[in-house]
């Protein structure tokens, strides 16, 4: 048996093992318990499976299928096939800060990577949340992502729709510290399809990780498994928006169990997409997150002393009146009705506030600018 020297025999064998039929992260951990990947591979090639495995088709059948599969897909071929897709297998121990993945259940035995693994040496923060996010939630995720990237943090996310995608879009737009995406399918199977470009961009400037070999499609149970890696890699896991039930809450639970800090962005009581996050704030040990500085302090990147005192906003009475009445946004007509100031002065004040970067148009409405509004 031989394997490519560039990747290392261990990673190649682990990758080949992960491709065996019926293999799961838990089974792979069983296979590798007390054995090196090379040793496990040799056993499989000769016809072996761990005694504990009780597949429905019978152990003998499984052993036969594994042996047959192993003869057709040796580690060298697996590595070469991955390389063609720009993917390489890595062992957690070989990643910068790979010890973060120790103690995860089930253990992470091998990862497939596309992009630059050295990004993991930066402080990592996960931004997670619901796929059915509100526009405001997506905006918050995007702004937090961009601010954290500018502060030198590698933003980790699951590249799902909604909050995940918005966070990474913000990171990419900031063109600062690149993002890390951890996904629940093979790296050549973008899911959801709408995020295909985002995947490519993350792989190009940042790092894409998956536990699954190329070609594996997204399965429902992959995502909770993916979440344990997201949580484990990150010093802080920030939940931006989550419904009462949601994958983001699973990630928060896993993060808590691993001793990571869980940050939560509070939301409106009327917003169903903030119900889960608000419950987390009330019922779990979490840190409220109002801006990126809160996250940086929780991650230990910045000291609490860095927070500047609140600045008076300046500007004239009309401008202040508009800021006070803007709430979660409003059209010009709504602002005229709320403030009692005429159309002309409202339009003029909005323009001046816009010039100072305090408000901005978002579709039909004017909204407060979130970014850096407090630090």
């Amino acid at each position, binding site marked *: 048996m031989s394997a490519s020297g560039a990747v290392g025999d261990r990673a190649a064998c682990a990758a080949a093992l992960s491709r065996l039929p019926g293999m799961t992260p838990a089974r792979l951990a069983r296979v590798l318990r007390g054995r090196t990947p090379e040793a496990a591979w040799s056993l499989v090639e000769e016809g072996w499976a761990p005694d504990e495995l009780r597949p429905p088709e019978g152990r003998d059948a499984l052993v036969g299928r594994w042996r047959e599969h192993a003869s057709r897909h040796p580690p060298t071929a697996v590595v070469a096939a991955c390389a063609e897709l720009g993917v390489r297998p890595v062992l957690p121990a070989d990643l910068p800060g790979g010890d973060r993945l120790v103690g995860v259940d089930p253990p992470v035995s091998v990862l497939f990577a596309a992009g630059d693994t050295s990004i993991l040496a930066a402080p990592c923060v996960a931004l997670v949340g619901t796929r059915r996010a509100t*526009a*405001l939630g*997506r*905006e918050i995720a*995007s*702004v937090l*992502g*961009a601010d954290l990237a500018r502060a030198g943090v590698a933003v980790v996310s699951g590249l799902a*729709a909604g909050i995940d995608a918005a966070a990474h*879009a*913000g990171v990419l*737009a*900031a063109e600062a510290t690149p993002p890390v995406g951890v996904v629940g399918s093979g790296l050549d199977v973008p899911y959801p399809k*709408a995020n295909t470009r985002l995947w490519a961009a993350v792989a190009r400037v940042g790092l894409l990780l998956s536990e699954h070999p190329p070609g594996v499609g997204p399965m429902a149970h992959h995502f909770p498994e993916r979440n344990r890696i997201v949580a484990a890699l990150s010093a802080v896991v920030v939940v931006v928006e989550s419904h009462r039930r949601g994958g983001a809450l699973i990630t928060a639970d896993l993060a808590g169990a691993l001793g990571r800090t869980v940050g939560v962005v509070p939301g409106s009581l009327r917003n169903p997409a903030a119900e889960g996050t608000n419950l987390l704030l009330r019922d779990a040990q979490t840190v409220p997150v109002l801006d990126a500085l809160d996250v940086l302090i929780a991650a230990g990147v910045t000291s609490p002393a860095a927070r500047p005192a609140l600045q008076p906003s300046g500007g004239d009475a009309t401008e202040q009146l508009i800021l006070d009445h803007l709430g979660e946004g*409003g*059209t*010009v*007509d*709504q602002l*005229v*009705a*709320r403030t009692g100031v*005429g*159309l*002309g002065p409202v*339009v*003029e004040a*909005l*323009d001046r506030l*816009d*010039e100072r970067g305090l408000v901005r*148009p*978002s*579709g*039909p*409405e004017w909204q407060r600018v979130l*970014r850096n509004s407090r630090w």
Partner: protein
Amino acid sequence: MLATVRSSTLLGADGHPVTVEVHVSNGLPSFTIVGLPDEACREARDRVRAAVLSSDLAWPQSRVTVNLAPSMLRKAGSGLDLAIAVGVLVAAEKLGPNAIDGIGFVGELGLDGSVRAVTGMVPLVAALPHGPCVVPAARVHEAVAVAHGPVRAAETLRQVVACLANGAPWPEHRTPPPERVVAPPDLADVRGQPLARLAVEVAAAGGHHLLLAGPPGAGKTMLAQRLPGVLPALDADLAVRVTSIHSAAGLPIPASGLVRRPPFRAPHHSASLVSMVGGGTSMLRPGEISTAHGGVLFLDELGEFAPAVLDGLRQPLEEGVVRITRARASVTMPAGFLLVAASNPCPCGPAGACVCGPGELARYRRRLSGPLLDRIDLRVPVSRPDVEDLLVGPPGEPSRVVAVRVAEARARALARQGCLNGSLPVGRLSEVAALRPAAQHVVRRQLERGRLSGRGLHRVTRVARTLADLRGLDELDADLVRAALALRADVLDREPRAA
């Protein structure tokens, strides 16, 4: 013997003169019509013969040939019946040729000899040569305004023959009962919503197309319906043109004979391409965009219209006319309308509680955006009126006050540049709508932030010019440009831009 009778036929919004030649000669009794008649026109054979016999007149027991000249022109509909019948009677020497000299005839015949109205009386009568015309009694009022001579009412073929042959008196003109006068909706009904009101005023003053976007119940339709009320009445030429189009399209014509108020057309979003731009049967009927000529075309639920229908609006929006081309004929019809479109911010309706998926939302926006939206100067968010404004707020400014400002602004624009600001060519903007330095500062920031394109700048400048005309100002200062920018909100984009 040969008889020649004047009549006309309809193609698109225009009438075309037709000469009906009838030849009666010896031979096997027969009745043929040549000269490119359409199906309804060919059926005239049976109607005319029955009408003549019902009127106790003898049908010639000879060979009757009717030629409709010019023979290249397709003759549509039943409006030539009366002319054919009169022609047959003259050719059969039942009527003297002098009796019909220089007279035009338009009307359909019933089997009992009654003279019935046809669609398009106004353009048909306008196309008749100088001299008296005989038209169905029920539509005399439509003919009076455009006729080139005295208008004679025809009730039955028998009566027409009696009047022509024996000089019996023509029946009195029947004036239709005056329509119930319905006061047009007034802007005073709109409470609050100052920006939306301003948009309606600017649209009327500058001829700027308008998109109203907002949740259901915000008052988009209410605002749109009040736009014609602040437009000036149609001038004499335009009134005749609009009346012709409405007549050709079969719309009711007011008792006065002329459409004087700007029309308001609001086709349902299930409208087909042909019903919208015109075409159809052999006479190529005017579509909604032509019947809205000189007035307002209101498209509620813009996103629900078929994409092909919306695409079909582009050329008329650009040129003010629509060219319909078919294998047999092509016509150009006026389509100078003010487009007012209304749209929900997303397919599911109310903003804020949107349950649309991102794909659904993207599809909806894609359908709305693009070339059509590019031609719309004013895009205004309409939010539900404030509760206090609705309950205790003062009534808004009434339409008649706004209409005065609109008329003055239009007069200023026409005196300065010969066209409304909405159709001001780009090349003339710097000459008649130069921005002062403070105004330039405002738009420069929008351009730098990528919120305004070059084309958008032109549109904002035109709108600012109209705002200045409404206030009687010459110079375009910062506050006008700010207001113009507020009237061009990115109303369909509810996604936060990338940070």
